[in-house]
C-alpha cells in the first residue's frame, strides 16, 4: 500500500536511502544536494539505519571511500552536485572500470562560470563517458522510483557498473510535491541484499583491485566494461518491469508522450519534460499533432528506442540543457543524431540549447519550439540546426 506524502526531491532520495539502508554513506556537502546527507544524518542519529556514515574532506574522498567500501563487498552511496561531481572525475572512472556498483545521487547544477548554483546538466554531461549508468527524473516521484531501482540495476551480475540517480537541482531537489512512497519492508524486499561474487575481503578468493593494466590487458577490460553497459539496457528494462509489477508505476528507457501520431516532437530530459507535456496538451486541443520524448536513461543511450519513437515524425527538436561547446550542438543532440544516422528516417532535426544556469523553461517557450517545427514541416527548410533559446541578445 503506497503512502501519500509530500516531499522535496532531496528528501525523497534520502527516504529511499533510509529504506534501502546501505552499508556505507560517505558524504561531503554541496548545494543543492546537501539536504540528502543532512536528512540521512538525522536517520543515523535516530538509529533508523545502521549505515556507516563517514564525513570526509572532499568529494574526491567521498567517492574514494565508496570505492573502498564497494571493493570490500559493501553497498556504498553518496550524493553530490556540480563542482563536487567534477572533483570526483578521476575516481568516477575508477569506480566504473573496477566495476563497483556505487550509487551516486546527483542534484544537477551548472558548472562554473560564471559561478552559479542553479540547474542545468553540465555537471553530469561532462561525466557521460565515465562508465556510470545515468538515470534522469522529471519530478520527485521519478527520482524516488529511480533510486529504488538503482542498486538492482547497478549490482546485476551482467552489469556491475556504478550508477548516477540524477535530479534537477532546485527545480526537483528543493520543490515539494505530492509523492507516493512505498512501505519500508516492500522497498527492502525489492532492493534485495547485495551479495557480490568476489570482493576484497573474501578469504577463499583473495583479489587484487585496481592493478596496473598493461597494453596487453587494458583493452579487454574496457571492452568488457562496454559490454556491461550494453547489458544494462536489458537489465534496466527488466528491473522496471518488476518495479511495475510490484509498485504499479511504469518506466522505460524513454517515455513517449502523445507520440502515437505525432508529426512534430521535442526530445528532452528531466523536469522540462513536464512543462513540454503541458504545451503538447494545449497544442493537441488546437489539433496540432505534437508529442514529447523524455530521455530517462542517458547511459546506456537509448538509440534504438529513439529511432523507433521518431520514425514517423517529420521534424523534431532536441533540447539540450548543457552547452558542450562542440559548436555543432549539445550532447543529447549529438547522440540522438548519431543513433538515427544509419536509419532510413527522413526526419529533419534541430538542436536548441536552453535553460543554462537555471534560466527558466516555460510552456510558452515549449510552444515556440513547436511553432518552429511546424514552420520546418511547412517550408521544408530546416534553418539553423544548432541555436540557443531564452538568452537576452542585448545583455552586453
Amino acid at each position, binding site marked *: 500500500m503506497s503512502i501519500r506524502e*509530500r516531499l522535496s526531491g532531496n528528501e525523497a532520495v534520502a527516504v529511499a536511502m533510509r529504506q534501502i539502508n546501505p552499508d556505507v554513506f560517505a558524504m561531503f556537502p554541496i548545494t*543543492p544536494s546537501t539536504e540528502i546527507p543532512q536528512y540521512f544524518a538525522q536517520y543515523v542519529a535516530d538509529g533508523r539505519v545502521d549505515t556507516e556514515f563517514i564525513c570526509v574532506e572532499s568529494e574526491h574522498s567521498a567517492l574514494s571511500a565508496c570505492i573502498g567500501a564497494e571493493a570490500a563487498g559493501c553497498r556504498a552511496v553518496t550524493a553530490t552536485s556540480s563542482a563536487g561531481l567534477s572533483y570526483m572525475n578521476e575516481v568516477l572512472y575508477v569506480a566504473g572500470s573496477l566495476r563497483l556498483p556505487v550509487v551516486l545521487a546527483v542534484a544537477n547544477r551548472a558548472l562554473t562560470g560564471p559561478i552559479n*548554483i*542553479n540547474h542545468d546538466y553540465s555537471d553530469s554531461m561532462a561525466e557521460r563517458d565515465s562508465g556510470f549508468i545515468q538515470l534522469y527524473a*522529471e*519530478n520527485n516521484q521519478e527520482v524516488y522510483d529511480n533510486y529504488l531501482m538503482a542498486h538492482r540495476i547497478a549490482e546485476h551480475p551482467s552489469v556491475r557498473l556504478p550508477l548516477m540517480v540524477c535530479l*534537477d537541482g*532546485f*527545480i*526537483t531537489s*528543493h*520543490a*515539494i*510535491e*505530492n509523492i507516493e512512497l512505498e512501505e519500508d519492508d516492500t522497498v527492502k524486499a525489492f532492493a534485495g541484499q547485495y551479495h557480490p561474487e568476489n570482493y576484497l575481503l573474501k578469504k577463499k578468493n583473495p583479489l587484487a583491485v585496481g592493478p596496473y593494466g598493461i597494453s596487453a590487458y587494458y583493452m579487454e577490460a574496457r571492452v568488457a566494461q562496454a559490454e556491461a553497459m550494453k547489458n544494462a539496457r536489458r537489465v534496466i528494462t527488466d528491473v522496471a518491469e518488476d518495479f511495475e509489477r510490484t509498485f504499479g508505476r511504469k518506466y522505460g528507457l524513454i517515455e513517449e508522450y502523445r507520440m502515437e501520431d505525432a508529426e512534430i516532437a521535442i526530445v528532452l530530459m528531466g*523536469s*522540462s519534460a*513536464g*512543462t513540454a*507535456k*503541458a504545451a503538447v496538451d494545449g497544442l493537441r486541443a488546437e489539433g496540432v499533432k505534437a508529442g514529447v520524448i523524455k530521455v530517462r536513461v542517458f547511459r546506456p543511450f537509448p538509440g534504438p528506442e529513439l529511432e523507433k519513437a521518431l520514425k514517423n515524425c517529420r521534424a523534431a527538436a532536441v533540447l539540450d540543457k548543457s552547452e558542450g561547446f562542440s559548436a555543432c550542438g549539445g550532447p543529447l543532440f549529438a547522440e540522438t543524431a548519431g543513433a538515427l544516422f544509419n536509419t532510413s528516417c527522413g526526419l529533419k532535426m534541430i538542436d536548441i540549447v536552453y535553460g543554462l544556469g*537555471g534560466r*527558466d*523553461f*516555460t*510552456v510558452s517557450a515549449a510552444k515556440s519550439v513547436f511553432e518552429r517545427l511546424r514552420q520546418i514541416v511547412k517550408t521544408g527548410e530546416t534553418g539553423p540546426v544548432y541555436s540557443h533559446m531564452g538568452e537576452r541578445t542585448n545583455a552586453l
Partner: protein
Amino acid sequence: MIEIRWHGRGGQGAKTASQLLADAAFMAGSYVQSFPEYGPERSGAPITAYNRISKERCPVHSNIYEPDYVAVVDETLLKSVDVTAGLKKEGAVIINSPLSPEEIKADLKGYEGRICTIDAREISLEFLGAYFPNTPMLAAVVSVSGCVEREQFLKDMEESFRHKFAKKPQVVEGNLKCLISAMDRVKG
C-alpha cells in the same frame, strides 16, 4: 489550479510560508507544488517562492508569471519589486502591513484587482509574543484565496501544530489563535 507567488526577504520565511501553504492544501487532499527561486542567498535580499495547488498533478515546472494571488511578507519590498507583475485582475495581492488597502494602493503600480492587507506583526506579537509573520500570512492567504476551506484548514493545522510542537504543547493554542485572528482581521 491556483497559482500563488510569495515575495519576502531572505531569512523572513517566505519559502517556509509557501511550504506551510502546501502542507495545508496537501492535508485537504490537493496536489501541491511549493518551490523557491534561489539566487545568491543573502539575508535580507528579495526572494520569491511559489505554490501551485490543483486537483490533478501539475506537470509544469516553470516559475509562475501570471499568478492568481501574490503574498508580500515584507511591505518594504513594494518600493523595489513590482510585486503585482502579471497578477491576474480577478485575483488579489495580500500584503503584510498595518496600512489599509486604500492607503497602500498607491505603491502598487496601478494594479486593478483586489488589494488586501494584514497586520501580521500586531497579530503575531499578540498571540505568539514575537514577530513570526508566516503564520498570520498563511491564514490570510488561505482566507483570501479560499484554496482550503476554513474549518478543514483550522482542523488540519491544529493537528500539524500538535505534531510539530509535541515538545512544547503550550504554543499550540497561540498559533491557532494567530491563524483564526488573521483570517478574521484580513482587510480588503
